[in-house]
């Protein structure tokens, strides 16, 4: 028993954090939200270059093997920096393609996902696909089939402007029948949980910094107990979500993954509500960068499984 990240995993998180801090992600997010993908693609290449997507791709398809724990570590950092794009969906597509009965689609599509040369999205019929307008690989899941969708519909605005969702056109090349959706869903939920945890951690950090410097009645508002206790509760929620996320990555047990998903997303959302309240009116503006995390915390709650769906998995597990 040793439930701790090792030195390399912590160094990996640290190097991603440093790289993303230097990348000025807020301006990337704002461009992406307008449909200008140039900066986002450049950032995507750097994330891929750091090896993030290869963590979801087996070695025979030019990945580094499937390492869910390292992937979760990376997604916490991607969430912390509000990195835009179909991050979870690319990982989910990789999980799906890795486990098709026929290795040909994996051989054809996975190396480019691992290297960051292409992005992927994936959706079940009738559901939205994130960033369908930005990606080369659109996997459309229908009853017992996975197809390479030929195109996408118009972008449907999200409460998180950086999440540009589209429907996928029906038809297209049939890649496989009986796709392993349950496995793909585990990876989707795990990555979303880790991303949400990162979003929550960033919201907490930013709010702590704000209440330390914001002065009212002659003292920092962070010295008031009413403020402290809300932040303490956010800290408790996030610190108990963290071991669930890492534990789910270690076991990939469906109940563990569902528990991590609902808990991390709710912790992030609780933290978002606290962040909004403690920032006051400035937090309620689109122009202030806090909004990039606030809106994402709301969107991730229902992405790849609502709180109710996840809890249903837990009680049946």
């Amino acid at each position, binding site marked *: *028993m*040793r*439930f*701790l*990240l*090792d030195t390399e*995993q912590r160094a990996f998180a640290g190097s991603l954090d440093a790289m993303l801090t230097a990348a000025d992600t807020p301006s990337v997010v704002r461009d992406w939200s307008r449909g200008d993908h140039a900066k986002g693609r450049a950032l995507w290449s750097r994330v891929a270059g750091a090896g993030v997507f290869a963590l979801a791709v087996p070695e025979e398809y030019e990945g580094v093997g499937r390492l869910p*724990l390292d992937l979760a570590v990376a997604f916490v950092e991607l969430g912390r920096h509000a990195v835009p794009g179909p991050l979870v969906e690319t990982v989910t597509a990789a999980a799906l393609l890795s486990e098709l009965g026929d290795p040909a689609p994996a051989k054809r599509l996975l190396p480019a996902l691992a290297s960051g040369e292409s992005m992927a999205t994936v959706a079940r019929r009738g559901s939205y696909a994130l960033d369908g307008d930005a990606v080369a690989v659109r996997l459309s899941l229908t009853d017992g089939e996975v197809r390479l969708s030929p195109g996408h519909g118009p972008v449907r605005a999200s409460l998180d402007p950086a999440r540009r969702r589209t429907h996928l056109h029906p038809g297209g090349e049939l890649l496989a029948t009986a796709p392993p959706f349950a496995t793909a869903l585990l990876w989707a939920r795990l990555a979303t949980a880790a991303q949400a945890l990162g979003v929550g951690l960033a919201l*907490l950090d930013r709010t*702590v910094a704000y*209440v*330390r410097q914001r002065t009212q009645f002659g*003292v*920092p508002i*962070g*010295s*008031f*107990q009413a*403020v*402290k*206790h809300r*932040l*303490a*509760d956010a*800290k*408790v929620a996030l*610190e*108990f*979500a963290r*071991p*669930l996320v*890492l*534990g789910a990555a*270690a*076991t990939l047990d469906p*109940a*563990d993954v569902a*528990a991590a998903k*609902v*808990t991390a997303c709710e912790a992030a959302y609780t933290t978002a509500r606290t962040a909004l309240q403690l920032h006051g009116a400035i937090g309620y503006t689109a122009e202030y960068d806090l909004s990039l995390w606030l809106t994402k915390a709301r969107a991730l709650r229902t992405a790849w499984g609502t*709180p*109710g769906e996840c*809890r*249903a998995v*837990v*009680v049946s597990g």
Partner: protein
Amino acid sequence: MDLTNSPADEAFRAEARAWLDAHVPAEPLPSLETEEGFAAHRAWEAELAADRWSVVSWPEEFGGRGADVFRWLVFEEEYYAAGAPGRVGQNGISLLAPTLFEHGTEEQRARVLPSMATGETVWAQAWSEPEAGSDLASLTSRAVRTDGGWLLSGQKTWSSRAAFADRAFGLFRSEPGTPRPHQGLTYLMFDLHAPGVTVRPIGRLDGKPAFAELFLDEVLVPDEDVIGEPGQGWRIAMSTTAEERGLTLRSPGRFLAAADRLAALWREGGEDPFTRDRVADALIGARAYQLFTYAAASRSAAGERLGPESSLNKVFWSEYDIALHETALDLLGEEGESADTGWSESYVFSLAGPVYAGTNEIQRDIIAERLLGLPRGRR
């Protein structure tokens, strides 16, 4: 990262499970907070101790098995999964014993620990006073130097288990007028039956005498019952409370077992859809607490000192415990109001969680100031 127990720990688990299967009483013991129940729980401690299961984490010479924290966690999982009785010796085992291991003398350990392990001596804590609760350092009970020892005078209150316990431990002001209230305090052990001690039991919410007031009038305590240096009591008490509260005050095994019982209750009752999410949250919370504890234990095993993060732990389990019990009582419907169900006593006990061992308001102040770095302010 490795979430599996070693084969040796699993063998230990099997041994513990077999022993518990053979020994846990088929019928629950009477309430620990009654005279009859206290005696029954004391006898259970002796039964545990006879086969060295009462203090598995202690060294063998004091009746333990030298279990490290991971093995202790395994024991606790099995203990509560087996539905074994509450531990009447908990105060002594989880608060006084660690203090003695770190700050006591060899003579004190040899004298105090064996009878604690068997339940022959049950210990009560004597921290709070009528005017010193959250602001514990403002306590005024005195320890006055006398020939060969100290004379204790003053009033302690909310002293858990003291109605039926044998001895108590706590902090006393041995140097009046120090510049700061945390200075000049001494950590002492004393006999609850000594001349000058009056114990007045207090009924908790359900009327059972779960705690007591202690009136002390020049109670003579010999020097051998001072722990550490006189005047250093605050530092000594705090050095173990943070560490111990973080890991061992409430084991995950307790909540894993309670959440499983709750899920079973929900299933037996036909899987009420309105309660499903709360049952799920009980299962999730128990898993989160287990994994959080594994992480803390792993850091501790790697040589990291656990400090203020124990406050996260205290807030989490105390709020969690109440929510779990409220869900159980709601599921029971009108039976939930009854005072003698398998959930009623533990519900009443859970209500005290956010108050004792440092209120959750104090814990949130600690989280905000020491973990998040917010400025100190008025309480």
